[in-house]
């Protein structure tokens, strides 16, 4: 069962603004889904290797050779708030 507080904490981690009613419905829906998901918690898999992905490749690398970078105007073409060749954002809360 997911509590309201947990929903708020996770939403904070995910940087998701949720309305009060979204928080409520979310708590119910997540609980329902996790209840189903929790079936796998019962399985005894202690000595099973986890699978990150099915590809068995190793050492896939690229040579240290420059490619052409984007021109600044293209790089900033879809920026919501470009300024002086840079991406402008509201400042993070002061660090000190």
């Amino acid at each position, binding site marked *: 069962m*997911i509590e309201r507080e*947990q*929903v708020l*904490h*996770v*939403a904070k*981690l*995910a*940087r*998701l*603004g*949720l*309305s009060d009613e*979204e928080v409520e419905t*979310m708590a119910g*829906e*997540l609980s*329902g*889904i*996790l209840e*189903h*998901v*929790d*079936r*796998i*918690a019962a*399985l005894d*898999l202690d000595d*099973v*290797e*986890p*699978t*990150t*992905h*099915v*590809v068995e*490749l190793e050492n*896939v690398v*690229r040579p240290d050779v420059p490619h052409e970078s*984007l021109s600044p105007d*293209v*790089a900033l*073409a*879809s*920026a*919501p*708030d470009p300024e002086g060749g840079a*991406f402008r*954002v*509201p*400042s*993070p*809360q002061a660090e000190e």
Partner: protein
Amino acid sequence: MKELLALTALEAHEAMVAGELDASEYAEAWRAAAAGDELNAYLWRDEDGDAPGIAVERPSVAPIAVKDIFCTEGVPTTAGSRILEGYRPPYTATAVRKLIEAGAPILGKTNMDEFAMGSSNENSAYGPVLNPWDRSRVPGGSSGGSAAVVAGGLAPWAIGTDTGGSIRQPAALCGIVGLKPTYGAISRYGMIAFASSLDQCGPFTRTVGDAALLLAILQGRDPCDSTSIGLPEAPRLPDREDLSGLRFAVPAELASDAIEPGVRVVFEATLAKIEGLGGEIAEAPLPHAEHGISAYYVLAPAEASSNLARYDGVRYGMRAPSSGDVIEMYEATRAEGFGAEVKRRIMLGTYALSSGYYDAYYGQAQKVRTKIAGDFKSAFDDFDFVVTPTSPSVAFGLGEKTDDPLAMYLNDFFTVPMSLAGIPAISIPAGLAEPSGGGPQLPVGFQIAAPAFAEQKLLDAAHALEKAIGFDARPQGVPGG
């Protein structure tokens, strides 16, 4: 020669090679057909075939519809999300580049569930796609638009992506062929990520032969995708006529009673056709497959929660107006830019990865994944293929399952295990069945799964079965045969 739009992509291709068909006229005819989209299947169309960045100089292959999850330089790419409204990528996905280089004009970008999260296409920020067989029903998802344009006579073929069934399920619900190749067969570069360890590009076609032709164009190792491998050899056109000497496994555990009676009937009939072609049918254990959904709905949202974190209103896409600091901007932008299902999965995935829960959820799900892959491995020791219905039901009604996420997730019951194992699986139309609630008959898909990189064998068998089934039904007013 058949009516132009009735040709399969392969027939059209052969006619072009033989000089009997002008590729440009053919592409023009399809652009005209695409313009008649009444299914909300296209989000963008290249009306005159001259969109800079993706235009094809001299067409030599059938034109194609591309799921809006593939980045196309200078051409709107939204992944069905509000947060990418108006976004025009500065680059083109490898899969699309290969199509263009092969001479396949891009007809347009198809509608989809937001960031490929959904099984009904009702999660698109741009409205649901309608099923060409019955416009009151869903086409399936997440690649609903790509399935609908091929089934609805708006494109000769299309590409989509499959993470837990997003090609196979809509192909089944729209009565066409859908192939999810082995993970790593086709580059993921430029394919907007949902769940990186599961996402795979694949074809939507009318026939298995078309699927083979399209796979041959798309597959291959890509230096831009560290997890891409390509196929051991370029796919040939399938020509097998029988199934003698081949063993088909029916997973005992997946004989779920959630299967609609009509779907079950078609499935049984198809098994009989396999035996008629000399194939052998037997039950095989896949003990962990039933936990596929649980593992999938931990792993996919976990990866998604990280993949979708980049949509923060800083470098591209929408930014919601907000006062205060950057955190408020993030929260406002993501609250406004994402739809309900995407938020749900971001929450689910963030929770599953958060400290204290990782081992119980993400770690455990990764182990279940290992077990499921192991189940298939041992099944393929005795069998050539594993077969199931593609979807437990035929196309369901719009809005029927929207308020029950779990019920929606269970649509992927038969398709998720193959995704987790990374093996290839194809859905071919096997017949028509009446929906449990009654109503006009709708397509039923038959899924065949093969060992990793055994695409050729899979296509050959599917081709033989396709011939035996002889499915030639088409939605109202769609040229075919």
